[in-house]
């Protein structure tokens, strides 16, 4: 690492030149192929997720499927476009920690009434259905 730093320091002061940092020029060329493949995968998965939405499946599995495909797509972006694959531990651990709190924020409010008083029928919060919406 320190030799690379010294080298790029020399490059940085003068004329533009190839950086000798974490990725050498030919490493990057190999990466370009990966970027294109990921793009292809992302496009395909987008088509898949839209197509899947036309399937007649119950809500629970539909949510699970949609989130699964989205997670796969997000992982591809994160691992390859954002270079998380091969990133240093401190960054990965910070993100894992964030993920734990993210999950807590998603799931805990949901579990409020797992057991306990529920709203009696008709007195809970409602969302006006747009199909029965009356024009003002």
């Amino acid at each position: 690492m320190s030799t690379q730093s010294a080298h790029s320091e020399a490059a940085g002061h003068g004329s533009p030149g190839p950086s000798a940092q974490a990725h050498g020029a030919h490493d990057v060329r190999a990466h370009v192929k990966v970027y294109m493949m990921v793009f292809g995968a992302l496009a395909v998965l987008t088509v898949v997720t839209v197509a899947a939405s036309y399937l007649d499946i119950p809500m629970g599995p539909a949510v699970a499927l949609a989130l699964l495909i989205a997670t796969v797509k997000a992982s591809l972006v994160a691992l390859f476009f954002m270079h998380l694959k091969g990133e240093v531990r401190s960054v990965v651990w910070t993100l894992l920690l964030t993920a734990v709190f993210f999950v807590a924020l998603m799931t805990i409010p949901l579990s409020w009434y797992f057991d306990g008083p529920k709203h009696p029928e008709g007195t809970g919060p409602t969302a006006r259905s747009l199909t029965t919406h009356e024009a003002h």
Partner: protein
Amino acid sequence: MELEKKDAHVAHGHAEAHHESFWRRYVFSQDHKVIGLQYALTALVFLLTGFSLMLLMRWQMAFPDDAMPLIGGLFSEAAAPGGRMMPEFFNQLGAMHGTIMVFMAIVPLVVGAFGNYVVPLQIGAPDMAFPKLNMVSYWCFLPGGLLMLASFFLPGGAARSGWTSYPPLSVLEAGQTAWLFAMVLLITSSLLGSVNFIVTIVQLRARGLTFMRLPFFVWSQLVTSFLLLLAFPPLEAAAVLQLMDRLAGTSFFMPEGLVVSGQIQDYSGGGSPLLWQHLFWFLAHPEVYVLILPALGMVAEVIANNTRKPLWGYRALVYSVCFVGFMSFIVWAHHMFLTGMGTVISAFFQTTTMIISIPSVIIVTCLLLSLWGASLRFNTPMLFALAFLPMFGIGGLTGLPLGLAASDIHLHDTQYVIGHFHYVVAPGTIFAIFAGIYYWYPKVTGRRMNETLGKIHFWPSLLAMNGIFFPMLIQGLGGMSRRLYDGGKTYEFAADILVWNKVMTMSAFTLAAFQLVFIFNFFWSIKKGKKVGANPWNATTLEWTDAPSPPIAHGNFPKPPQVFRTAYEYSVPGQPQDFKPQSQEA
């Protein structure tokens, strides 16, 4: 002495090399020391403002039927006709006192001021990692704070739905929009600051300064910054949603069929007031750890230095502070036990709340054990640091019946809650802040504050603090609710405990009087305090051993420090002095 000579030489060279305009040097500075002082002075003014609001409230609670003497005429007809406070104005004072103290005084002091000034020095860095971002942080904080204060003078007055801003009330009441916009600015300031702190601590540590050699103060700031980073965004989101409810007529928090004073409210409904509580407390619980962790750090520094011993259990302290930080994210619903939550989720939060008390106790225990066999020096910073321990202890212990749902049924929303958390922040954090000010003042100014005046400040303050907050515990146990503008006099069952209102009010005004001693000492010592060198306390950490007092304007150190040992090598056997600086080679 060597440090002083080098400082003069370097400063002279700098002054000639580049002449900074007044604005660049003192107003739009990118120097962490200047920014730290900007935060300190601004936050101290806000602290005084929040304190004054409380004095008004305490008067009202003790003498609810009387007009305010002397200043009664200064208030508008809407606020206090004939000097007699209206309930709406009392509610504004309450909401703003809480908001100002938490977001504009304490956090900017412990993080913005102490964190900014001391952390780069303690890790041997020339400045923060992102000096421009640091400047932006302050310049988001100041307008946010000013907007918050200005809201008192807007038509309709300031926010009045508690610092907790629960809807539907907060969506319907005046003054809340300014509160929300001000919060967005304050939150942005904190978020930018937290990124800066973490990167600084990770990336700019001096050579040889491994994580386990860091002063505990730096660890506490690191954990605090993670709390700010990850917990504040949900409140920012919630503030946007509440603004939408107020300004765009949405129903994120507004339930269907809401009727106010006989009027059906024009909202589509379908919203959930509970949603606000979740998002608010998701931040606000970690926020209280933001209030206390840097304070624990400051107290630790002062104790280590004035016991002439290493801190007891450094490793335990570090693991505990990290564990506290983590747990603080999963205890928030202990503020919501009375919302009708199911027993499963209630049990979960009681458990996590009980668990989080363990590392807190470990930290206090380590600090107490650090006193065993110590060579104690009872200077003013140490007095405040020592007093912090039992005061924080009371605060923590009184939290236990609140964290258990069964007892919380009786205590929720009573004066007991106010007594509990004030013990933690007032004779807790604020005492730690005083300890920090008396301790680091010589580093900033090159002079010491007056010791006699410091003691005159300390002892009455300690007594007065207890005079204010202990009776709250009594009143709360007696069933008296919080946020009552008349001090509870309409409730028959409270008749016996009303007398405590007068005790608390007199204690509050006593406390106010003795802060004048501190304010005088603070300003007088800038010019008249005893001059000191770089390390008047004979401390081991880098800010004392390697930087002059005050540190060099650009870059802090004459040469970049290198660290060879842990942070608290006091009374090392076989050494000529009773302390061994971190940067001393042999």
